[in-house]
């Protein structure tokens, strides 16, 4: 047993898992607030990455300026999308809403390919030091930045939902729309805001992945990888999403370790999360932290 390799894989898993956790959080946020499953989450990441890349290249802005402008843009984008496309679908069966988000993802994928081309484009170098040493493993600086930002976002989400007025309004709407409305909460605003925040945070994750791998149309596949994390944690628990992301990140790497050292099947890195997903769904269908739908028959 190669302990150094295992340990390094663990560290790497946690770091990537933090990123999965961020995207999973956005997913859960939208679901919690507006009961919509957003299959276009990957495309949000893609749009954010391309927008940031374009700002950096076209206007030669410093990174943080471009980053903040991207976040603002994505917030507006999420808001507009919700108002224009998703509001008419309130009340429709789940499958229709899923289909709409799938249609949106197809639309945006093609749009991005049209606007920015199909080849992978590198981000201009952002940090002076491309990689730093974390616990003995050379890690890209941008990952370290993303871990810090992820923790920051998790803390601010936690504060937002527990103590701020809007956060409480969102939780109330998620619990029961009609009661929330009767208490004077503007459900429309809550929906729009949740989409805006989700788009914004996805863009952040997208920029990180883009800095690491270059921006390309395939970046949106990240969105599919997030599903096991979301289910593991429970579809309506933010904490669960974070935990789920971390677990999936570590799990992927551990599976790869087992695969390369012991089993030699070759594909466990990609497939293990989905096997685990099925297992979780059979044992604990509501994930680790999700709320149980209690039915009395």
């Amino acid at each position, binding site marked *: 047993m190669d302990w150094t390799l295992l340990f390094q894989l663990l560290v790497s898993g946690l770091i990537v898992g933090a990123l999965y956790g961020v995207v999973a959080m956005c997913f859960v946020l939208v679901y919690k607030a507006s009961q919509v499953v957003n299959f276009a989450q990957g495309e949000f990441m893609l749009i954010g990455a391309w927008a940031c890349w374009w700002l950096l290249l076209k206007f030669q802005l410093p990174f943080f300026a471009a980053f903040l402008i991207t976040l603002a843009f994505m917030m507006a984008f999420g808001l507009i999308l919700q108002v224009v496309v998703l509001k008419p679908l309130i009340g429709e069966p789940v499958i229709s809403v899923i289909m709409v988000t799938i249609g949106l993802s197809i639309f945006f994928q093609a749009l991005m390919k049209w606007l920015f081309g*199909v080849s992978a484009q590198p981000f201009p170098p952002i940090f002076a030091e491309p990689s730093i040493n974390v616990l003995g493993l050379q890690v890209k600086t941008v990952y370290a930045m993303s871990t810090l930002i992820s923790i920051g976002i998790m803390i601010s989400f936690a504060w937002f939902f527990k103590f701020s007025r809007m956060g409480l309004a969102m939780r109330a709407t998620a619990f029961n729309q009609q009661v929330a409305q009767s208490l004077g909460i503007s459900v429309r605003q809550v929906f729009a805001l949740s989409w805006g925040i989700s788009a914004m945070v996805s863009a952040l994750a997208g920029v990180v992945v883009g800095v690491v791998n270059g921006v390309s149309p395939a970046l949106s596949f990240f969105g599919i990888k997030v599903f096991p994390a979301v289910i593991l944690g429970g579809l309506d628990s933010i904490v669960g999403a974070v935990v789920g992301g971390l677990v999936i990140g570590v799990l992927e790497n551990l599976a790869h370790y087992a695969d390369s050292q012991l089993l030699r099947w070759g*594909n466990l890195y990609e497939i293990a999360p989905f096997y685990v997903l099925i297992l979780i769904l059979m044992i604990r269908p509501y994930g680790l932290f999700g709320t149980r739908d209690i039915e009395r028959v």
Partner: protein
Amino acid sequence: MDVKRMMAGAVLAGGALLSLATTVVVAQGISIGHLADFSGPTADVGGPYGQGVADAIAHINKHGGVAGRKLEHETVDYSYQVPRAISTYKNWSGRVVAIQGWGTADTEALVGFVTKDKIPYFSASYAATLTDPAGGSKADKATPYNFFYGPSYSDAARGLVQWAADDWKKKGGQGKPKYVHMGANHPYPNSPKAAAEEYARELGFEVLPPIQFALTPGDYTAQCLTLRQSGAQYAYLGNTAGSNISILKACQTVGVQVQFLGNVWGMDENAMKAAGSAANNVVYPVRTSAIWTDKAPGMALMREISKMSDPGGTAYRASHYLAAVCATLYMKEAMEWAAANGGVTGENIRKGMYARQNWTPKGTEGVCKPSTWTAQDHRSLLQLDLYRAEVKDAPDAPIAELVAKGTIQMRRIATIDLLRKKEWLGW
């Protein structure tokens, strides 16, 4: 119920579409088909290749066509979706005499059809299973109507392995060097795996278990850590450019000391620009004898053809573009032979491909490598040039500029001549 009323409506709609979608074939022209991927998952390499074919055809038509007849062609972007390729083929069969195809998906799907309908299919998929026209080898099926210009994936991999063995000796390495295949579990990267690993063993390598990484960009730190821990000296990257970029960057961060060997579609100027210094030192094969910046007699024709879609003459053309032009010109010369020997039909074009040995199309000397197709062996090219990528990190700029400044350089380091072994046919 009005199920069938709707079906009748569908029939009418289908008929209307038939008239919309078919191009009018002029009796004088020669009809060929062109399948390309400009917008699908392989579009980053499919774009330059498809552009090369289209430009070459336009150039041929501008200079009198084939034996005085223009090439009537239809370029269809099928986005790497097999059903679309099949329905396009159905539309074409009975009209076209040859097809310029693209990737593994459409080539494999159409093998049976083109063999039955006797339509030569020039693919950009260089799978070794397409090289056996008579059947009976390890390829398991006879493909008499499949042609491609370039070394097959397996042969290219064997060439890289051979270079790696020589490189190990030159570096004075002690003991058995270690070789590992890295790629997705997918027809394209798997195509040369078994052949390359067997040849590596033959040459004295210790072959390590393959490392898998997906065809999509992602985080491959885990694979790089495993690679580093395994101690391999030579790693073959079997995927396309998009994911190779990811793994090169990840391995650079982790600090892996390994000689990466690329494949024909896995490393090109675009990939070098996107990966930056992570792509430095990667050794990869090139199908043509020259790249865009070289001075060779054939480059004059290439630049002329490039002007068909870039009148200003400023575009930088990747190696895929040049290979595409070569493939099209080979088809053209086979058609010319057919025109002089019984008419331009699929069967005669095939015979035309066998008519010459070691030929390069007129005007492409120094670019297209001399190739030979025979009725028993469709391995046209057994010589490959190996280049080393030399890339520095630099601010973003168009590729032409980066090449001119020397930020991206491709240095030819070896020309490998492979043996035409009978037991290597078809796999």
